[in-house]
Every structure is written in structure tokens, then in C-alpha cells.
């Protein structure tokens, strides 16, 4: 499977990544090579092997349901470009 220029543009848009026009071709070629590698791996016979959801063969440790965080709004909002009434302000979005 080879990746076309329009695939690169679509993926970039979905990931909100800006790509210079001149670079689209080389991304398409790099991604195609990755896909080739995956196809190569697909040739290994894995029938009868249970797929893993995670490279570590372990299960999730769970946390007790306890509130351990305190209000640190002031500290946490120091990074924010704009705040008002405790809210983070972002460019207007309308659904």
C-alpha cells in the first residue's frame, strides 16, 4: 500500500499539522516505506496467536477512588495565554 499526496494532506489536517507544500512528496514516500515494512511483517504467520493490546504482557494496576488533588488553579493557569473568571479563554468555537 502506498501513501499518496492527498493522503498526507488529509492525515496532516486531521492531526492539525502544518506541512510545507514542498515536503508533501517526501512525506508520502517516507510513509509508504513504513507501510511497506508493515506489509513485510504481515508475511509472518501469526495464526493462532492472540493479538496483544499493549507491548507489555501485564494488566492495568488500579487506583483507589480517593480525591488526592487539591485546587491548584492559580499555578496551573500561569501558562495560559488568557484567562477570565477562572476560565481558559480560547479562540471562539461554535459547534
Amino acid at each position, binding site marked *: 500500500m502506498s501513501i499518496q499526496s492527498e493522503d498526507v494532506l488529509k492525515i496532516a489536517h486531521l492531526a492539525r499539522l502544518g506541512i510545507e507544500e514542498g515536503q508533501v512528496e517526501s512525506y508520502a514516500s517516507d510513509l509508504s516505506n513504513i507501510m511497506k515494512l508493515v506489509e513485510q511483517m504481515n508475511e509472518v504467520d501469526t495464526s493462532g496467536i492472540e493479538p496483544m493490546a*499493549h507491548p507489555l504482557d501485564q*494488566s492495568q494496576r*488500579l*487506583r483507589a477512588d480517593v480525591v488526592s488533588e487539591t485546587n491548584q488553579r492559580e499555578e*496551573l493557569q500561569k501558562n495560559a495565554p488568557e484567562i477570565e473568571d477562572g*476560565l481558559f479563554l*480560547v479562540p471562539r468555537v461554535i459547534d
Partner: protein
Amino acid sequence: MQWETVIGLEIHAQLATKSKIFSGASTAYGADANTQACAVDLALPGTLPVLNEQAVRFAVKFGLAIGAHIAPYSVFARKNYFYPDLPKGYQTSQFDKPIVGLGELDIVVDGKVKTIGVTRAHLEEDAGKSLHEDYQGMTGVDLNRAGTPLLEIVSEPDMRSAAEAIAYVKKLHTLVQYLGICDGNMQEGSFRCDVNVSVRPMGQEEFGTRAEIKNLNSFRFIEKAVAHEVERQIDVIESGGSVAQETRLYDANKDETRSMRSKEEANDYRYFPCPDLLPVEITAELLDEMQRELPELPEAKNQRFQTQYKLNGYDADVLTTQRAMADYYEAAVKSSGGETKLVANWVMGELSAGLNKENLAIEAAPVSAERLGGLVKRIADQTISGKIAKQVLELMWSSDDNADTVIEREGLKQISDTGALEKMIDELMAQNMLQVKQYRAGKTKMIGFFVGQLMKQTQGKANPQELNKLLQEKLKG
């Protein structure tokens, strides 16, 4: 042409945990903006999720209650999209390996039982809230809700009318509250409903194209939105168009749905297993433990109320819809000395009316079950009449006094003493010979006059049965 409506529902139930699904921030409702949004909820670099055990237990409990398959291993996945109230740029959810698999629920519509399939239920995190009021032309973001655990419960497209959809939603709403896994508060968004609606010509096998309606936060809105959407889709098709697969928003003010975004373009979520979380293992021990912790479920309680308390189906339905109401009823019956029907009438009648008037939940009832039971006991043993009991309840409502204290203090004890009543009747008849003659001449309705006078004299305390019996005897002459 005859059209058939097809409805499937997605319910988002906020799980009643103290802390968030992946962080130790509080989930309490109504806090100041962003005071319960910690570094994990804000997706600051380097933070990692740690799964809340209680959220997992709640999901398992739900699965067991609907007879579903519980996955021994379930997997969290990332659902990728960009919106300011989703700081990570993906929602941590479950995709192809949800924790709860296929189950079912029975609903009753018009006396007929119908089984609705539950396709799956999965754990995920809630998003924050965007406030579009004017903040200097910008949008305000409150991330307190971000990371609140949700159980998304997806039904099969098994419902064929708004009434069936409502019955299903109500059933689930009752169930999650019985299980104690969700507070069910629809106004606060703890229990939210998205409805998938399509229409097809009657008899056609294939489903029509569906629209998803979001933002339905009351049973009434669900009913109205479905009715409106069905009509809209039929109009579109009958005038030669085709229904678009899209998300529509219900506007309660205008009572209409309008297009929100087209799903074709937006719906490219690129799910993949979340590398930050390992598969969740549900052991046989946990399953056993949750099974043991399951409370008596609504249907079983309903049946038991009908057999144990000899209630009719309607009473049992009303009393078991909320677990708190059912508990109240049982406690009141106990302290009333087993007056099952009378207690049912008082809980569903005077008590509920009083609660509605003040917009109180039964948990906040000013008169406890024990005190109400005590009042009913005094009606049953004829210390007071039902009418006087209403007066007593009012006095109990605004104090901590029990029924006996109020009856004693206000001198409301019923007069059942035959001798005392007879004396009053004799005096009254002597003073009103004209009315007595009229009664004896066949105007038997005149008895009402005597009852009225005597009730007035005794301030309503005369035992009505006794009074009627004595009056009839004496008036006959």
C-alpha cells in the same frame, strides 16, 4: 405510505465516583471553574493516567445487572479529535474491546413486554465544558468535568416508537440509581441521552439513514425530539429528498432539531489502543464480589412489593421507580405496624404532593419514614381520621414532632365515644326539629346537614363512621 420508526439510544451515565477516572481530582458538581482540573485532566506534558478501581467495579456491576458478558480483558483506546474542551486531543475511551458486552433489558409499553438489546457498555472520560457567552469574543473553557468517568451504554436499534424509547431510558435511569453507580441527575448532566432515529417504509428490512440527536436532558425532550425528527425525515423523503447522516441538536425553545455537523467528514476518529494504559483484567474473584454486592433490582422489588405487601401493579410501579422511595415505603410500613395499603396511599399522595410542592427529593423529606409510619398507625387505630391526619402531617412537616405529640398537643384525638356523640346528636336534633321532620319525610340527604354541624362542633374530630351510624339510627326515630 406507512412508515416505521427505528430508534437506538446511546446513554452517557456519569459514574458516581469521588475522583476522576484517570486522576485524583474531585468530580463534585458545581465547583468554581477549573478548581477541580489537575495536571492530568489538563493533559500537561509528562502526566499519565491511572485507572480508578471504582469506575471498573461500577461498570462490572452494570454488566451483571443486564445479564451481559463481562470481558475478562478490555482495552482503552484513543478517539482522536480536536476541540478546546478536550485538552489531550483525544478522548480515552474503549473501542473494539469494551468492558461490557451484549446484554438486554425488558421494557413494558401498553402492557406488553419487549426485550431491548444492549449492544455494549464501555468506560470513557467526559470532556470539559465550553462556554460560548461572550468573553471578549472568545470561548471560555472549564475543565472541571474533564475526566469524569462515563459509562456509555449503547442499545440495539430495537425501539419502534418514542414511547418505547422513553420506557427504555426510564428503565436504565432507574437501574443505574438502584445500582448506586450514577445519581441520575439529568439537569446536572449526570445522565445524558443521544438518540439515533431513522424511518423506513413499513415492511422494509433495511434500515433508513439515521440522524443522531444530541442534547436531550429530559424524558419530555426525548419524546418531542423523536416526534419532530420522524416527521422531518418523512417530509424529506416524501418530497423526493434523502436523509443525510448527521448529528442534529434539539432546541427545546423552538421544539425542533437542527443540523450540528455532518458526520461524513468529521467522523474520522482514528481509534488506536492507548499506549498509556494496559488492558484491564476482570478476575473471577471480582466478578463474584460484584455479583454478591448487587442489590435487589427494580423488577424483583416490584414483584416482591406486590406479593409481600399485597399492592397492585400501579402502586408497586410508582413505589419502586426510585430506590429511595421504595426504602422509605418499607421503613414507613414497618413503623405503621404493617399498614401496607394505607402507607402506600400516604407516600404516593400527601407525602409526594408535599415534596413536589417544595421540589424536594424523597431523601430530603422533612417527615421521616418512621414519623409517617407513626401517623398512619394513628389513622389505622382510629385515633384520628384521615382528614385530621392531613392537618397533623402539616404540623409535623414544619417540626420534628412525631404524630402522637402533635395529636396530644393540639387535642386532635378523634371522638369515638358513643355516649358523647349521642349526647351531641340529641341536642342538635332538639334544636333543629324542622330538618329532622324533613329527613323523616324522605329527604334523606338532610343527613349531610347534621354531619356538617357536628363536625363543626367537634372541629372535625368526630369519628365519621361512628357518627354516621349513630345519626342514621337516631334520625329514623
